[in-house]
């Protein structure tokens, strides 16, 4: 029994405890409707975390994800200018943008051998600059209700998230690609020697992260509407969530379920601290302590196994 239990990422336990405390303090949280509302609100982070996970298991970072979300929201508003007929063409355009950004991140990191921290930091600056250079400083245009419904209506948002999570799980744990991706991060040299196409795995991981940012952007644009800093800070939250979920920076380790639980735990934690009336700055402090503990625990477990 202990063996099986040990394989369950510890984050699920943390999530369970945090949720229990929330329900204890506010029983109405357990009602199906408020649970669904909670899921809707968490949807963008869950989706982005699922994408970031692929980049992290292959041993890289994607710091440009937050800026890509903002770029997508602003581009969607500018291009569609509120025209409902353009909803799907715009979504297609965003997908191309996200895949393109991921591809560039991947190529620069692998072919030009720029560390991904720098590549994606540069991409973040380029995206932030380019988008507002184009729109003249603040977002223009608007988002049609038809475009926003996917993030604004609970049913859609939850369904989209469920599909994304299922795809991420299948891809990482039930496909050859996932196997190779984990091998890529686990021991790059050994992986390369044993024939894993390391560069290709990493490029694909960046493209997945880019596409996840697009989906997160559509969800967030729906939930919150057009704003100038829609995605700011999301990249660090997603990385924190992945780490909380037991993945190791540097690659080779991580599970889709853990990452999703990490994202949910972060969101639950914010809700709980809010509920407890804890001063908001201290919520940052709690988050900081928590990610350090999670990473320390993962490192400890890794050492024990070896």
């Amino acid at each position, binding site marked *: 029994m202990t063996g099986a239990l040990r394989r369950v990422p510890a984050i699920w336990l943390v999530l369970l405890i945090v949720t229990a405390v929330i329900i204890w303090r506010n029983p109405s949280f357990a009602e199906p409707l408020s649970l669904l509302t909670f899921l809707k609100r968490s949807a963008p982070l869950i989706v982005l975390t699922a994408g970031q996970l692929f980049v992290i298991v292959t041993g890289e970072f994607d710091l440009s994800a937050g800026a890509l979300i903002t770029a997508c929201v602003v581009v969607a508003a500018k291009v569609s200018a509120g025209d409902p007929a353009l909803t799907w063409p715009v979504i297609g355009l965003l997908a191309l943008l996200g895949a393109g950004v991921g591809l560039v991140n991947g190529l620069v990191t692998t072919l*030009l051998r720029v560390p991904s921290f720098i590549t994606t930091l540069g991409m973040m600056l380029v995206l932030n600059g380019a988008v507002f250079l184009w729109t003249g400083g603040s977002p223009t245009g608007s988002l049609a209700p038809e475009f926003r419904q996917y993030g604004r209506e609970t049913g859609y948002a939850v369904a989209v998230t469920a599909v994304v999570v299922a795809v991420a799980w299948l891809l990482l744990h039930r496909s050859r690609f996932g196997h190779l991706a984990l091998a890529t991060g686990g021991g790059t040299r050994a992986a390369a020697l044993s024939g894993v196409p390391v560069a290709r795995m990493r490029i694909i991981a960046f493209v997945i992260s880019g596409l996840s940012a697009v989906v997160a952007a559509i969800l967030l644009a729906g939930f919150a509407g057009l704003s100038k800093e829609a995605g700011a800070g999301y990249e660090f939250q997603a990385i924190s969530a992945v780490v909380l979920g037991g993945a190791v920076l540097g690659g080779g380790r991580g599970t889709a379920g853990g990452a999703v639980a990490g994202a949910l735990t972060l969101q639950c934690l914010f809700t709980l601290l809010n509920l407890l009336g804890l*001063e908001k*700055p201290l919520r940052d402090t709690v988050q900081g302590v928590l990610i350090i503990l999670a990473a320390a625990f993962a490192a400890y477990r890794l050492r024990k196994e070896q």
Partner: protein
Amino acid sequence: MNASPADLPLPRTSLRRRAEGTSLPVWLVFALVFVVAWVAAGTRGGDFGTADNLRNIALRSVALGLVAVGQTVVVLAGSLDLSVAYVVSLSAVACSVVMTGQTGLIVPGVLTALLLGVAVGLANGLVITRLKVNPFIATLGVSLVLRGLLNATFDNFAGAVPEEFQALGYDLVAGIPVSVVMLVAVVAVTWFLLHRTPFGHHLYAVGGDPESARMSGIRSGRVLVFAHVLCALCSAASGVFLASRLGAGAPWVGPDGGYDLESIAAVVLGGTALTGGRGRLLGTVAAVLILAVVDSVFNQFQADPFLRTLVRGLIIVGAVALYAYRGGRR
């Protein structure tokens, strides 16, 4: 600096040179940017070469320069520090809160600021070495902790520095701003530590190949902790400078300056490898000056701030790609 020099295998100079690289190319780029800026300003009837303008460029480099010097040390050790921005805030706030406008409290104020820096550096270093947490997460976590504590305690400029202390931010000695002299001194001391002491040798060794560094008897944990303390100390010095320049410290002075990501950008722009063990401190200094000159050119041409952001992104990635290309060919 915990083992005596006799314990360590000192690499031969030629080998070390190759490992550490040279900052010359970065200085050439700086010279190029400088000349281009001068010519560009000239064609627009601006005055680039004046003492006033050069002083201003140097002054613009101080805050980032101090942080970047510290960041170089940790990056050379194969680590990185994302908490520097909040260390800057912490020390700026501590400085002005302790001084409360009294001349007699200048020394205690500066000491408190620097000691807090040391404490954060120790925390970073210990979390990384003892708890084996990845530096990215460790310093991100510490920075969140600091951010929470700072914002819970202060919500505006707090305290004040005395008039005399503002000399550090505004006065000149022999035509050179006091703060630039301070930056030069910090660079000199750090350069000496990196290139003329056993600690420096160990640092490069730990950053280059931690495994063989450990095999050759280097206590890599201690080296790393010391590197983080140095980095936080430099950031704290930057906070002290900002407190004197702004008249007080506020929780936002560090993050608003963007010193965390910008200092890392300056380090890699200066030719130091993010993987550690390779790079030169003076390269970072040149990179900080390049960024300041580019900024001055942007001002000259009144470039759109969004265009600036875009160009900065391209410069950083482009430079690192270029270094990687050169490194690959060698």
